[in-house]
């Protein structure tokens, strides 16, 4: 009996002290498998994501939406697939897109994302024209002043685009005076910028605002959806995968072209890794409580 108890205790001690190396190795294998085998998820769009999707879907062709790429490379894997998916959706609906950033780091990332989608549409046989279908305004310093500035006079805030073209002369931006001419602002953010868009664009100018945020921040912005301050929100890679799957399906149907999936592949790895982590937490807790019980005896 005593021998049996000793064996059980030893086992519990062992599982509670799995070396870090094996835990990371297990995680690596679990993360890599779906990527190597290209296992794709069939996501179901969540309510907050659907709110953004429905809003964009309800806009008449020719409307203008503005994307704010306020993130750096560290948040790119989560936020870029969202931006790509929204641009695909917008272009397929005939909606024109302006891009800008409030973060220096986002300057190159925003341009890369917009160029990538333009290239996809070109490959799909539906070329987009710069200056008519899309414009990249680049980085503007000033954060809240920029957001307020757009509400006052768009051309004064952005006299030139990223390439130095006059925004008063470009087909897309020529007629944009202020937020009245922008149907929706979507802020892809790795920081607190959605708060500034809500505070200044929504509260002051009644501008429709949506947010695409990293999963870490998702819970912070959820209360703003029910109050109507955000028309919807894309939260982390799950939302990115939902939206991406939908737009890939749309492009396949319409153009017979499949854009490279990213979030739909990544989300399988995330799901597996979450399950792996839950199992580790359960094992750790069993070990902890069993050892504590033993010590009390």
């Amino acid at each position, binding site marked *: 009996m005593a021998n049996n108890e000793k064996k059980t205790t030893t086992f519990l001690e062992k599982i509670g002290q799995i070396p870090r190396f094996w835990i990371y190795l297990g995680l690596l294998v679990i993360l890599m498998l779906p990527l190597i085998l290209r296992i794709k998820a069939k996501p179901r769009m969540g309510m907050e994501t659907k709110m953004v999707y*429905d809003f964009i879907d309800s806009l008449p062709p020719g409307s203008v939406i503005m994307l704010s790429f306020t993130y750096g490379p560290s*948040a790119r894997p989560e936020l870029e697939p969202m931006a790509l998916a929204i641009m695909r959706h917008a272009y397929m609906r005939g909606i024109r897109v302006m891009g800008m950033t409030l973060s220096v*780091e986002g300057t190159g990332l925003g341009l890369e994302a917009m160029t990538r989608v333009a290239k996809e549409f070109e490959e799909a046989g539906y070329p987009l024209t710069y200056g008519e279908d899309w414009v990249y305004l680049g980085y503007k310093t000033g954060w809240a002043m920029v957001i307020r500035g757009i509400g006052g006079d768009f051309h004064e805030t952005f006299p030139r685009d990223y390439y130095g073209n006059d925004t008063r002369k470009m087909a897309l931006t020529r007629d944009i005076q202020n937020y009245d001419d922008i149907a929706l602002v979507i802020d892809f953010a790795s920081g607190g910028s959605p708060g500034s868009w809500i505070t200044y664009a929504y*509260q002051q100018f009644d501008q429709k605002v949506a947010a695409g945020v990293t999963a*870490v921040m998702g819970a912070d912005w959820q209360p703003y959806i029910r109050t109507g301050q955000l028309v919807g929100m894309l939260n982390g890679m799950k939302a990115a995968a939902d939206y991406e799957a939908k737009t890939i399906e749309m492009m396949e149907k319409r153009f017979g072209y499949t854009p490279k999936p990213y979030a739909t592949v990544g989300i399988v790895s995330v799901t597996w890794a979450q399950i792996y982590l839950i199992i580790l937490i359960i094992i750790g807790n069993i070990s902890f409580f069993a050892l504590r019980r033993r010590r009390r005896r």
Partner: protein
Amino acid sequence: MPAILTWLISWKTLAAILTLAIMSFLYKENPFYRFAEYLFVGLSAGYGFAMTYHLAMKPNLLRPFIIPLLQRIHILGGEPLPINWWYIIPTFFALCYLSVIVPKYSNIIRLPFAFLLGLGSGMAIPRSFQAAILEQLWDTILHPKGYHGYVDMSEKYGWSLTLVVVSAIIIFVSVLAVLAYFFFSKPHKGAYGKFARFGIIILMIGFGASFGSTVMARFSLLIGRLMFLLSWISGFPH
């Protein structure tokens, strides 16, 4: 050049090596990790400075004011650019920041700070109060404005209105319970103590949800690098 050499001598290979160097920290601290870390910090700072100079300082300060000013006092040549004299005010404030270099005049830095704080407070406080407090309060206390929101959501997404309202009541009670937990002027005993205990449970549920989301976010970032490494390996010439 052989294909394998082209693959090896590429920016992508360099990025992959640096990624692996950073990941090597998971095993233990090592010189490769340190090198990659310092390189990253240095490059980020350099990139940030260069971008800020070209995208913020040049169009907003140098072109409209400093360069034309230097032209007028014949320090710079070239075709004369129009000058905007109003820019003398932000230029003065910008120079005030440099006063910290001379301790005797370092008090001058208070001027731009005071201006920025005043401007920021004036702009942010009324709007933030409306956005982050009043609107949220209406929603929490089932103000008619918030209730209309529930009806809209219920109709739009086919949810039962009862379910939406019940969830709103849960939020309301939870907010009160959490506030009760942080109210220390009254001892946490009896019914009040139990209510405050309910508050801490709600907080724990909230933290758990945040932790789950954080884990998902961190995995997403790791997946980004793993996908990059896989694309790098797949580029290996066969």
